[in-house]
Protein backbone atom coordinates (compact mmCIF):
# COMPACT_ATOMS: atom_id res chain seq x y z
CA UNK A 1 0.00 0.00 0.00
CA UNK A 2 2.87 2.27 0.89
CA UNK A 3 4.42 1.61 -2.51
CA UNK A 4 1.19 2.42 -4.32
CA UNK A 5 0.92 5.65 -2.38
CA UNK A 6 4.46 6.60 -3.26
CA UNK A 7 3.90 5.85 -6.93
CA UNK A 8 0.68 7.92 -6.92
CA UNK A 9 2.50 10.79 -5.28
CA UNK A 10 5.32 10.63 -7.81
CA UNK A 11 3.03 10.73 -10.82
CA UNK A 12 0.86 13.45 -9.30
CA UNK A 13 4.01 15.54 -8.82
CA UNK A 14 4.98 14.83 -12.43
CA UNK A 15 1.64 16.16 -13.70
CA UNK A 16 1.79 19.20 -11.46
CA UNK A 17 5.29 19.94 -12.75
CA UNK A 18 4.05 19.55 -16.31
CA UNK A 19 1.13 21.92 -15.69
CA UNK A 20 3.51 24.46 -14.13
CA UNK A 21 5.82 24.25 -17.12
CA UNK A 22 2.83 24.82 -19.39
CA UNK A 23 1.72 27.83 -17.35
CA UNK A 24 5.18 29.36 -17.39
CA UNK A 25 4.45 30.01 -21.08
CA UNK A 26 8.04 29.19 -21.99
CA UNK A 27 6.96 26.85 -24.81
CA UNK A 28 4.14 27.46 -27.23
CA UNK A 29 0.97 25.64 -26.09
CA UNK A 30 0.94 24.00 -29.52
CA UNK A 31 4.16 22.18 -28.63
CA UNK A 32 3.38 21.64 -24.98
CA UNK A 33 -0.33 21.40 -24.21
CA UNK A 34 -1.60 21.39 -20.65
CA UNK A 35 -2.14 17.95 -19.11
CA UNK A 36 -5.75 19.05 -18.70
CA UNK A 37 -6.09 19.46 -22.47
CA UNK A 38 -4.55 16.04 -22.98
CA UNK A 39 -6.97 14.69 -20.42
CA UNK A 40 -9.86 16.30 -22.25
CA UNK A 41 -8.76 14.73 -25.54
CA UNK A 42 -8.55 11.31 -23.90
CA UNK A 43 -11.98 11.77 -22.39
CA UNK A 44 -13.56 12.85 -25.66
CA UNK A 45 -11.85 10.07 -27.61
CA UNK A 46 -13.13 7.59 -25.07
CA UNK A 47 -16.67 8.95 -25.26
CA UNK A 48 -16.83 8.95 -29.05
CA UNK A 49 -15.40 5.42 -29.04
CA UNK A 50 -12.43 6.13 -31.30
CA UNK A 51 -9.88 5.42 -28.58
CA UNK A 52 -11.44 2.14 -27.57
CA UNK A 53 -11.78 0.85 -31.11
CA UNK A 54 -8.19 1.84 -31.95
CA UNK A 55 -6.95 0.14 -28.79
CA UNK A 56 -8.86 -3.00 -29.66
CA UNK A 57 -7.46 -3.03 -33.21
CA UNK A 58 -3.89 -2.64 -31.96
CA UNK A 59 -4.16 -5.07 -29.07
CA UNK A 60 -5.80 -7.66 -31.29
CA UNK A 61 -2.99 -7.40 -33.86
CA UNK A 62 -0.41 -7.63 -31.16
CA UNK A 63 -2.05 -10.53 -29.39
CA UNK A 64 -2.66 -12.64 -32.50
CA UNK A 65 0.84 -12.18 -33.85
CA UNK A 66 2.46 -12.64 -30.48
CA UNK A 67 0.63 -15.83 -29.61
CA UNK A 68 1.31 -17.24 -33.05
CA UNK A 69 5.00 -16.32 -32.73
CA UNK A 70 5.15 -18.05 -29.36
CA UNK A 71 3.39 -21.18 -30.55
CA UNK A 72 5.77 -21.40 -33.48
CA UNK A 73 8.92 -20.27 -31.67
CA UNK A 74 8.77 -22.56 -28.63
CA UNK A 75 8.76 -25.87 -30.52
CA UNK A 76 11.26 -24.55 -33.06
CA UNK A 77 13.60 -23.54 -30.24
CA UNK A 78 13.26 -26.99 -28.69
CA UNK A 79 14.03 -28.53 -32.07
CA UNK A 80 17.11 -26.40 -32.75
CA UNK A 81 18.40 -27.33 -29.30
CA UNK A 82 17.79 -31.00 -29.97
CA UNK A 83 19.02 -31.46 -33.54
CA UNK A 84 22.41 -30.23 -34.64
CA UNK A 85 21.24 -29.94 -38.29
CA UNK A 86 18.53 -27.51 -37.24
CA UNK A 87 20.88 -25.60 -34.94
CA UNK A 88 23.30 -25.09 -37.84
CA UNK A 89 20.57 -23.92 -40.19
CA UNK A 90 17.42 -22.55 -38.59
CA UNK A 91 19.23 -21.69 -35.35
CA UNK A 92 21.84 -19.66 -37.17
CA UNK A 93 19.17 -17.88 -39.19
CA UNK A 94 17.23 -17.06 -36.02
CA UNK A 95 20.35 -15.68 -34.41
CA UNK A 96 20.94 -13.39 -37.36
CA UNK A 97 17.35 -12.26 -37.73
CA UNK A 98 16.99 -11.67 -34.02
CA UNK A 99 19.78 -9.11 -34.24
CA UNK A 100 17.95 -7.34 -37.07
CA UNK A 101 15.86 -4.43 -35.70
CA UNK A 102 12.36 -5.76 -36.18
CA UNK A 103 11.14 -2.48 -37.72
CA UNK A 104 13.11 -3.54 -40.77
CA UNK A 105 10.38 -6.07 -41.51
CA UNK A 106 7.86 -3.31 -42.21
CA UNK A 107 8.91 -2.42 -45.78
CA UNK A 108 9.17 -6.10 -46.69
CA UNK A 109 5.77 -6.85 -45.18
CA UNK A 110 4.19 -4.03 -47.19
CA UNK A 111 5.70 -5.24 -50.43
CA UNK A 112 4.64 -8.81 -49.81
CA UNK A 113 1.22 -8.31 -48.29
CA UNK A 114 0.26 -4.77 -49.24
CA UNK A 115 -1.49 -2.51 -46.75
CA UNK A 116 -3.37 -5.36 -45.11
CA UNK A 117 -3.85 -7.03 -41.75
CA UNK A 118 -1.56 -9.77 -43.01
CA UNK A 119 1.29 -7.27 -43.16
CA UNK A 120 0.70 -6.23 -39.54
CA UNK A 121 0.47 -9.87 -38.47
CA UNK A 122 3.70 -10.65 -40.28
CA UNK A 123 5.55 -7.78 -38.61
CA UNK A 124 4.45 -8.83 -35.13
CA UNK A 125 5.30 -12.48 -35.75
CA UNK A 126 8.76 -11.55 -36.99
CA UNK A 127 9.32 -9.43 -33.90
CA UNK A 128 8.36 -12.30 -31.60
CA UNK A 129 9.55 -15.43 -33.32
CA UNK A 130 13.33 -15.11 -33.43
CA UNK A 131 13.75 -13.99 -29.84
CA UNK A 132 11.59 -16.85 -28.66
CA UNK A 133 13.51 -19.40 -30.72
CA UNK A 134 16.87 -18.13 -29.48
CA UNK A 135 15.78 -17.96 -25.84
CA UNK A 136 14.22 -21.42 -25.91
CA UNK A 137 17.26 -22.91 -27.61
CA UNK A 138 19.55 -21.18 -25.16
CA UNK A 139 17.43 -22.22 -22.20
CA UNK A 140 17.44 -25.86 -23.22
CA UNK A 141 21.21 -25.84 -23.67
CA UNK A 142 21.60 -24.47 -20.18
CA UNK A 143 19.57 -27.21 -18.52
CA UNK A 144 21.93 -29.20 -16.28
CA UNK A 145 22.31 -32.64 -17.92
CA UNK A 146 21.86 -34.24 -14.51
CA UNK A 147 18.12 -33.40 -14.65
CA UNK A 148 17.57 -35.51 -17.73
CA UNK A 149 19.70 -38.32 -16.31
CA UNK A 150 17.79 -38.30 -13.04
CA UNK A 151 14.52 -38.31 -15.00
CA UNK A 152 15.70 -41.27 -17.07
CA UNK A 153 16.37 -43.34 -13.97
CA UNK A 154 12.80 -42.61 -12.89
CA UNK A 155 11.35 -43.97 -16.11
CA UNK A 156 11.01 -40.75 -18.10
CA UNK A 157 12.17 -40.68 -21.70
CA UNK A 158 11.60 -39.04 -25.06
CA UNK A 159 8.70 -36.63 -25.25
CA UNK A 160 7.91 -36.98 -21.55
CA UNK A 161 11.40 -35.79 -20.63
CA UNK A 162 11.08 -32.86 -23.01
CA UNK A 163 7.70 -31.77 -21.72
CA UNK A 164 8.15 -32.41 -18.02
CA UNK A 165 11.86 -31.86 -17.47
CA UNK A 166 13.69 -29.95 -20.20
CA UNK A 167 10.93 -27.45 -20.89
CA UNK A 168 10.23 -26.46 -17.27
CA UNK A 169 13.95 -26.42 -16.49
CA UNK A 170 14.45 -23.96 -19.36
CA UNK A 171 11.56 -21.73 -18.27
CA UNK A 172 13.63 -18.91 -16.75
CA UNK A 173 15.34 -18.41 -20.11
CA UNK A 174 12.14 -18.88 -22.06
CA UNK A 175 10.26 -16.24 -20.09
CA UNK A 176 13.15 -13.86 -20.67
CA UNK A 177 12.85 -14.53 -24.40
CA UNK A 178 9.08 -14.11 -24.33
CA UNK A 179 9.52 -10.74 -22.74
CA UNK A 180 12.08 -9.64 -25.28
CA UNK A 181 9.91 -10.96 -28.12
CA UNK A 182 6.98 -8.99 -26.79
CA UNK A 183 9.06 -5.80 -26.64
CA UNK A 184 10.26 -6.27 -30.22
CA UNK A 185 6.77 -7.07 -31.49
CA UNK A 186 5.22 -4.08 -29.74
CA UNK A 187 7.80 -1.64 -31.08
CA UNK A 188 7.63 -2.87 -34.64
CA UNK A 189 3.84 -2.91 -34.66
CA UNK A 190 3.81 0.72 -33.58
CA UNK A 191 6.32 1.65 -36.27
CA UNK A 192 4.16 -0.10 -38.84
CA UNK A 193 0.94 1.51 -37.67
CA UNK A 194 2.44 4.97 -37.59
CA UNK A 195 3.84 4.86 -41.08
CA UNK A 196 1.27 2.79 -42.92
CA UNK A 197 -2.46 3.16 -43.18
CA UNK A 198 -4.26 -0.14 -43.06
CA UNK A 199 -7.83 0.37 -44.16
CA UNK A 200 -9.21 -2.65 -42.35
CA UNK A 201 -8.65 -1.03 -38.98
CA UNK A 202 -7.22 2.10 -37.41
CA UNK A 203 -4.93 1.31 -34.53
CA UNK A 204 -3.34 3.51 -31.91
CA UNK A 205 -0.40 4.12 -34.24
CA UNK A 206 -2.75 5.73 -36.75
CA UNK A 207 -4.25 7.99 -34.14
CA UNK A 208 -0.76 9.05 -33.19
CA UNK A 209 0.06 9.72 -36.82
CA UNK A 210 -3.11 11.78 -37.38
CA UNK A 211 -2.37 13.72 -34.26
CA UNK A 212 0.85 14.84 -35.89
CA UNK A 213 -0.85 15.60 -39.23
CA UNK A 214 -3.44 17.72 -37.47
CA UNK A 215 -0.79 19.37 -35.32
CA UNK A 216 -2.85 18.13 -32.37
CA UNK A 217 -0.14 17.71 -29.77
CA UNK A 218 -2.66 16.74 -27.09
CA UNK A 219 -3.65 13.75 -29.24
CA UNK A 220 -0.02 12.71 -29.78
CA UNK A 221 0.74 12.89 -26.08
CA UNK A 222 -2.58 11.32 -25.12
CA UNK A 223 -1.97 8.30 -27.36
CA UNK A 224 1.57 8.00 -26.07
CA UNK A 225 0.16 7.77 -22.57
CA UNK A 226 -2.21 5.01 -23.69
CA UNK A 227 0.68 3.11 -25.30
CA UNK A 228 2.66 3.46 -22.13
CA UNK A 229 -0.26 2.15 -20.13
CA UNK A 230 -0.67 -0.88 -22.40
CA UNK A 231 3.02 -1.68 -22.03
CA UNK A 232 2.77 -1.45 -18.25
CA UNK A 233 -0.37 -3.57 -18.12
CA UNK A 234 1.14 -6.26 -20.34
CA UNK A 235 4.09 -6.43 -18.02
CA UNK A 236 1.94 -6.63 -14.91
CA UNK A 237 -0.64 -9.03 -16.34
CA UNK A 238 1.44 -11.30 -18.54
CA UNK A 239 4.97 -11.31 -17.25
CA UNK A 240 4.87 -10.47 -13.56
CA UNK A 241 2.96 -13.64 -12.65
CA UNK A 242 5.52 -15.74 -14.55
CA UNK A 243 8.38 -13.95 -12.92
CA UNK A 244 6.79 -14.32 -9.50
CA UNK A 245 6.35 -18.03 -10.21
CA UNK A 246 9.98 -18.43 -11.23
CA UNK A 247 11.18 -16.37 -8.30
CA UNK A 248 9.08 -18.42 -5.93
CA UNK A 249 10.17 -21.80 -7.28
CA UNK A 250 13.79 -21.21 -8.15
CA UNK A 251 14.46 -18.80 -5.32
CA UNK A 252 16.34 -16.55 -7.69
CA UNK A 253 16.98 -13.08 -6.36
CA UNK A 254 15.37 -10.37 -8.45
Amino acid at each position, binding site marked *: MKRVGLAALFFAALFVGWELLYRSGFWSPVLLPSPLVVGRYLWEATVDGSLLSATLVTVKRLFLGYVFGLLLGLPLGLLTARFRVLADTLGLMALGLQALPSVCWVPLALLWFGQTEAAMFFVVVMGTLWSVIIATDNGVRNV*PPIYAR*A*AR*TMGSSGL*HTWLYVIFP*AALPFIVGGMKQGWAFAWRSLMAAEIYVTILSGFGLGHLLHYGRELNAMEQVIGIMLVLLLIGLLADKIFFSPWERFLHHRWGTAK
Partner: protein
Amino acid sequence: MSLSDEVSVEAPAAKLSIKGVSKRFVSGKRSVHALDDVSLDVGEGEFVCLVGPSGCGKSTLLNLVAGLDLADSGQISADGIPINAPGRDRMVMFQEAALFPWLDVLGNVMFGLRRKPGLTDAERCKVAEFYLRLVGLEKFHRAFVHELSGGMKQRVALARALAPNPRVLLMDEPFGALDALTREQLYGDIQRIWQQRKKTIVFVTHNVREAACLGDRVVLFSPHPGRIREQFKIDLPRPRDINSVELARHTTAITAALKNHVRPEAEVAE
Protein backbone atom coordinates in the same frame (compact mmCIF):
# COMPACT_ATOMS: atom_id res chain seq x y z
CA MET B 1 -1.26 -53.35 -6.87
CA SER B 2 -2.45 -51.99 -3.55
CA LEU B 3 -0.95 -49.34 -1.37
CA SER B 4 0.20 -51.81 1.27
CA ASP B 5 1.99 -53.82 -1.42
CA GLU B 6 3.60 -50.65 -2.61
CA VAL B 7 5.15 -49.65 0.68
CA SER B 8 5.71 -53.17 1.98
CA VAL B 9 9.29 -54.41 1.88
CA GLU B 10 8.30 -57.23 -0.39
CA ALA B 11 9.99 -55.89 -3.51
CA PRO B 12 12.91 -58.20 -2.76
CA ALA B 13 16.43 -56.89 -3.02
CA ALA B 14 18.22 -57.90 -6.19
CA LYS B 15 21.48 -59.68 -6.75
CA LEU B 16 23.88 -57.80 -8.99
CA SER B 17 26.47 -59.45 -11.13
CA ILE B 18 29.19 -57.52 -12.91
CA LYS B 19 31.43 -59.65 -15.13
CA GLY B 20 34.56 -58.49 -16.94
CA VAL B 21 33.27 -54.98 -17.59
CA SER B 22 35.46 -52.49 -19.47
CA LYS B 23 34.68 -48.95 -20.47
CA ARG B 24 36.69 -46.38 -22.40
CA PHE B 25 35.83 -42.74 -22.98
CA VAL B 26 37.18 -41.34 -26.20
CA SER B 27 37.04 -37.61 -26.77
CA GLY B 28 39.05 -36.38 -29.72
CA LYS B 29 42.52 -37.87 -29.49
CA ARG B 30 42.33 -38.55 -25.77
CA SER B 31 41.12 -41.88 -24.59
CA VAL B 32 40.50 -42.70 -20.92
CA HIS B 33 40.38 -46.28 -19.76
CA ALA B 34 37.78 -45.72 -17.05
CA LEU B 35 37.16 -49.38 -16.22
CA ASP B 36 39.32 -52.35 -17.05
CA ASP B 37 37.95 -55.87 -16.68
CA VAL B 38 35.97 -55.20 -13.53
CA SER B 39 34.07 -58.06 -11.94
CA LEU B 40 31.97 -57.77 -8.83
CA ASP B 41 29.07 -59.64 -7.29
CA VAL B 42 26.69 -57.95 -4.91
CA GLY B 43 24.42 -60.15 -2.84
CA GLU B 44 20.73 -59.66 -2.13
CA GLY B 45 20.31 -56.88 0.37
CA GLU B 46 24.04 -56.31 0.62
CA PHE B 47 25.45 -52.84 1.30
CA VAL B 48 28.60 -52.46 -0.81
CA CYS B 49 30.78 -49.37 -0.78
CA LEU B 50 33.11 -48.51 -3.64
CA VAL B 51 36.08 -46.39 -2.61
CA GLY B 52 39.07 -45.04 -4.44
CA PRO B 53 40.61 -41.76 -5.50
CA SER B 54 38.66 -39.63 -7.95
CA GLY B 55 38.96 -40.74 -11.55
CA CYS B 56 39.13 -44.46 -10.80
CA GLY B 57 35.82 -45.21 -12.49
CA LYS B 58 33.47 -45.49 -9.53
CA SER B 59 30.82 -43.23 -11.05
CA THR B 60 31.28 -44.88 -14.41
CA LEU B 61 30.54 -48.29 -12.91
CA LEU B 62 27.51 -46.94 -11.05
CA ASN B 63 26.16 -45.39 -14.25
CA LEU B 64 26.58 -48.69 -16.04
CA VAL B 65 24.62 -50.50 -13.33
CA ALA B 66 22.00 -47.73 -13.51
CA GLY B 67 21.77 -48.34 -17.25
CA LEU B 68 22.56 -44.70 -18.01
CA ASP B 69 25.61 -45.80 -19.99
CA LEU B 70 26.64 -48.95 -21.82
CA ALA B 71 29.78 -50.98 -21.21
CA ASP B 72 32.22 -51.61 -24.08
CA SER B 73 32.53 -55.23 -23.05
CA GLY B 74 31.44 -57.47 -20.22
CA GLN B 75 28.08 -58.24 -18.68
CA ILE B 76 26.03 -56.59 -15.98
CA SER B 77 22.88 -58.23 -14.75
CA ALA B 78 20.36 -57.89 -11.96
CA ASP B 79 18.93 -61.25 -10.85
CA GLY B 80 20.28 -62.73 -14.06
CA ILE B 81 18.58 -60.20 -16.35
CA PRO B 82 21.08 -58.18 -18.40
CA ILE B 83 21.01 -54.44 -17.77
CA ASN B 84 21.05 -52.19 -20.83
CA ALA B 85 18.72 -49.35 -19.89
CA PRO B 86 17.57 -47.51 -16.76
CA GLY B 87 14.81 -49.25 -14.84
CA ARG B 88 12.64 -48.59 -11.84
CA ASP B 89 14.22 -51.56 -10.09
CA ARG B 90 17.45 -49.53 -9.82
CA MET B 91 17.18 -46.00 -8.54
CA VAL B 92 20.03 -43.52 -8.34
CA MET B 93 21.02 -40.81 -5.90
CA PHE B 94 23.55 -38.31 -7.22
CA GLN B 95 26.03 -36.08 -5.43
CA GLU B 96 24.09 -32.99 -6.44
CA ALA B 97 20.58 -33.81 -5.31
CA ALA B 98 19.37 -33.13 -8.88
CA LEU B 99 15.94 -32.18 -7.56
CA PHE B 100 13.66 -30.27 -9.90
CA PRO B 101 13.25 -26.64 -8.80
CA TRP B 102 9.91 -26.21 -10.60
CA LEU B 103 8.31 -28.89 -8.40
CA ASP B 104 7.79 -28.78 -4.66
CA VAL B 105 9.12 -31.53 -2.38
CA LEU B 106 6.07 -33.74 -2.82
CA GLY B 107 6.12 -33.16 -6.58
CA ASN B 108 9.74 -34.26 -6.74
CA VAL B 109 9.02 -37.48 -4.87
CA MET B 110 5.95 -38.06 -7.05
CA PHE B 111 7.88 -37.66 -10.30
CA GLY B 112 9.06 -41.25 -10.50
CA LEU B 113 5.82 -42.57 -9.02
CA ARG B 114 3.77 -40.91 -11.75
CA ARG B 115 5.71 -42.95 -14.29
CA LYS B 116 4.85 -46.13 -12.42
CA PRO B 117 1.73 -47.81 -13.76
CA GLY B 118 -0.98 -49.52 -11.75
CA LEU B 119 -1.46 -46.86 -9.08
CA THR B 120 -4.08 -44.18 -8.63
CA ASP B 121 -2.92 -40.65 -7.99
CA ALA B 122 -4.22 -40.80 -4.44
CA GLU B 123 -2.16 -43.93 -3.83
CA ARG B 124 0.91 -42.29 -5.33
CA CYS B 125 0.43 -39.38 -3.00
CA LYS B 126 0.16 -41.71 -0.02
CA VAL B 127 3.32 -43.53 -1.07
CA ALA B 128 5.22 -40.27 -1.45
CA GLU B 129 4.05 -39.17 1.99
CA PHE B 130 5.15 -42.48 3.44
CA TYR B 131 8.69 -42.01 2.16
CA LEU B 132 8.87 -38.36 3.16
CA ARG B 133 7.96 -39.47 6.67
CA LEU B 134 10.65 -42.16 6.47
CA VAL B 135 13.33 -39.55 5.78
CA GLY B 136 11.90 -37.19 8.40
CA LEU B 137 10.52 -34.52 6.08
CA GLU B 138 6.78 -34.94 6.61
CA LYS B 139 6.48 -31.25 7.41
CA PHE B 140 8.05 -30.11 4.16
CA HIS B 141 5.73 -31.45 1.47
CA ARG B 142 5.01 -28.05 0.05
CA ALA B 143 8.51 -26.57 0.38
CA PHE B 144 10.50 -25.67 -2.71
CA VAL B 145 13.96 -26.95 -3.41
CA HIS B 146 15.72 -23.65 -2.79
CA GLU B 147 14.17 -23.46 0.66
CA LEU B 148 15.90 -26.66 1.81
CA SER B 149 19.34 -27.11 3.37
CA GLY B 150 21.87 -29.40 1.65
CA GLY B 151 21.06 -32.24 4.02
CA MET B 152 17.31 -31.86 3.49
CA LYS B 153 17.80 -31.88 -0.27
CA GLN B 154 19.59 -35.20 -0.05
CA ARG B 155 16.79 -36.54 2.14
CA VAL B 156 14.27 -35.58 -0.52
CA ALA B 157 16.50 -37.18 -3.15
CA LEU B 158 16.58 -40.33 -1.00
CA ALA B 159 12.79 -40.33 -0.66
CA ARG B 160 12.49 -39.81 -4.40
CA ALA B 161 14.81 -42.74 -5.08
CA LEU B 162 13.01 -45.00 -2.60
CA ALA B 163 9.48 -44.09 -3.72
CA PRO B 164 9.19 -46.40 -6.77
CA ASN B 165 10.27 -49.21 -4.41
CA PRO B 166 13.41 -50.22 -6.32
CA ARG B 167 15.34 -53.37 -5.53
CA VAL B 168 18.70 -51.68 -5.85
CA LEU B 169 19.75 -48.26 -4.63
CA LEU B 170 22.75 -46.70 -6.35
CA MET B 171 24.32 -43.80 -4.49
CA ASP B 172 27.11 -41.69 -5.98
CA GLU B 173 28.86 -39.71 -3.23
CA PRO B 174 25.46 -38.57 -1.98
CA PHE B 175 26.86 -36.93 1.15
CA GLY B 176 30.03 -35.53 -0.41
CA ALA B 177 28.90 -31.92 -0.33
CA LEU B 178 27.46 -31.93 3.21
CA ASP B 179 28.99 -30.76 6.47
CA ALA B 180 30.23 -33.37 8.96
CA LEU B 181 27.35 -33.04 11.40
CA THR B 182 24.65 -33.43 8.76
CA ARG B 183 26.56 -36.35 7.28
CA GLU B 184 26.64 -38.18 10.61
CA GLN B 185 22.87 -37.86 10.94
CA LEU B 186 22.44 -39.25 7.47
CA TYR B 187 24.74 -42.22 8.21
CA GLY B 188 22.34 -43.16 10.95
CA ASP B 189 19.29 -42.65 8.75
CA ILE B 190 20.59 -44.56 5.79
CA GLN B 191 21.50 -47.56 7.95
CA ARG B 192 18.08 -47.52 9.57
CA ILE B 193 16.32 -47.22 6.22
CA TRP B 194 18.46 -49.91 4.64
CA GLN B 195 17.58 -52.33 7.45
CA GLN B 196 13.91 -51.39 7.30
CA ARG B 197 13.54 -51.45 3.52
CA LYS B 198 15.95 -54.29 2.71
CA LYS B 199 17.54 -52.86 -0.41
CA THR B 200 20.70 -53.84 -2.18
CA ILE B 201 22.86 -50.72 -2.00
CA VAL B 202 25.92 -49.77 -4.00
CA PHE B 203 27.41 -46.68 -2.43
CA VAL B 204 30.24 -44.72 -4.01
CA THR B 205 32.49 -42.52 -1.89
CA HIS B 206 36.07 -41.39 -1.62
CA ASN B 207 35.77 -41.23 2.15
CA VAL B 208 37.19 -44.45 3.59
CA ARG B 209 35.70 -43.93 7.03
CA GLU B 210 32.27 -43.40 5.51
CA ALA B 211 32.66 -46.58 3.47
CA ALA B 212 33.66 -48.62 6.52
CA CYS B 213 30.81 -47.19 8.54
CA LEU B 214 28.13 -48.03 6.00
CA GLY B 215 29.29 -51.07 4.05
CA ASP B 216 29.02 -54.79 4.65
CA ARG B 217 31.88 -54.80 2.23
CA VAL B 218 34.30 -52.14 1.00
CA VAL B 219 35.63 -52.48 -2.53
CA LEU B 220 38.85 -50.62 -3.25
CA PHE B 221 39.44 -49.21 -6.75
CA SER B 222 42.60 -47.82 -8.29
CA PRO B 223 42.74 -45.52 -11.31
CA HIS B 224 44.35 -45.52 -14.79
CA PRO B 225 42.85 -47.87 -15.70
CA GLY B 226 40.01 -48.28 -13.19
CA ARG B 227 40.38 -51.66 -11.50
CA ILE B 228 39.25 -53.40 -8.34
CA ARG B 229 42.27 -53.82 -6.08
CA GLU B 230 41.11 -55.31 -2.84
CA GLN B 231 37.97 -56.01 -0.86
CA PHE B 232 37.33 -55.72 2.85
CA LYS B 233 34.56 -57.36 4.79
CA ILE B 234 33.24 -55.18 7.61
CA ASP B 235 31.44 -57.38 10.11
CA LEU B 236 30.68 -54.86 12.81
CA PRO B 237 27.20 -54.80 14.37
CA ARG B 238 24.74 -52.12 13.30
CA PRO B 239 23.92 -49.38 13.66
CA ARG B 240 27.53 -48.29 13.51
CA ASP B 241 28.92 -45.09 14.86
CA ILE B 242 31.32 -43.34 12.52
CA ASN B 243 33.54 -42.42 15.49
CA SER B 244 33.83 -45.88 17.06
CA VAL B 245 37.24 -47.41 17.77
CA GLU B 246 36.52 -50.72 16.01
CA LEU B 247 35.59 -48.80 12.91
CA ALA B 248 38.87 -46.89 13.08
CA ARG B 249 40.73 -50.23 12.94
CA HIS B 250 39.07 -51.11 9.63
CA THR B 251 39.59 -47.60 8.34
CA THR B 252 43.30 -47.78 9.06
CA ALA B 253 43.67 -51.06 7.17
CA ILE B 254 41.75 -49.79 4.15
CA THR B 255 43.60 -46.48 4.07
CA ALA B 256 46.94 -48.32 4.18
CA ALA B 257 45.86 -50.51 1.27
CA LEU B 258 44.63 -47.47 -0.63
CA LYS B 259 48.01 -45.76 -0.29
CA ASN B 260 49.76 -48.94 -1.22
CA HIS B 261 47.81 -49.41 -4.43
CA VAL B 262 47.39 -45.88 -5.54
CA ARG B 263 50.77 -44.26 -4.95
CA PRO B 264 52.88 -46.30 -7.38
CA GLU B 265 50.13 -46.15 -10.00
CA ALA B 266 49.84 -42.41 -9.68
CA GLU B 267 53.57 -41.97 -10.12
CA VAL B 268 53.56 -44.11 -13.22
CA ALA B 269 50.69 -42.08 -14.59
CA GLU B 270 52.41 -38.73 -14.08
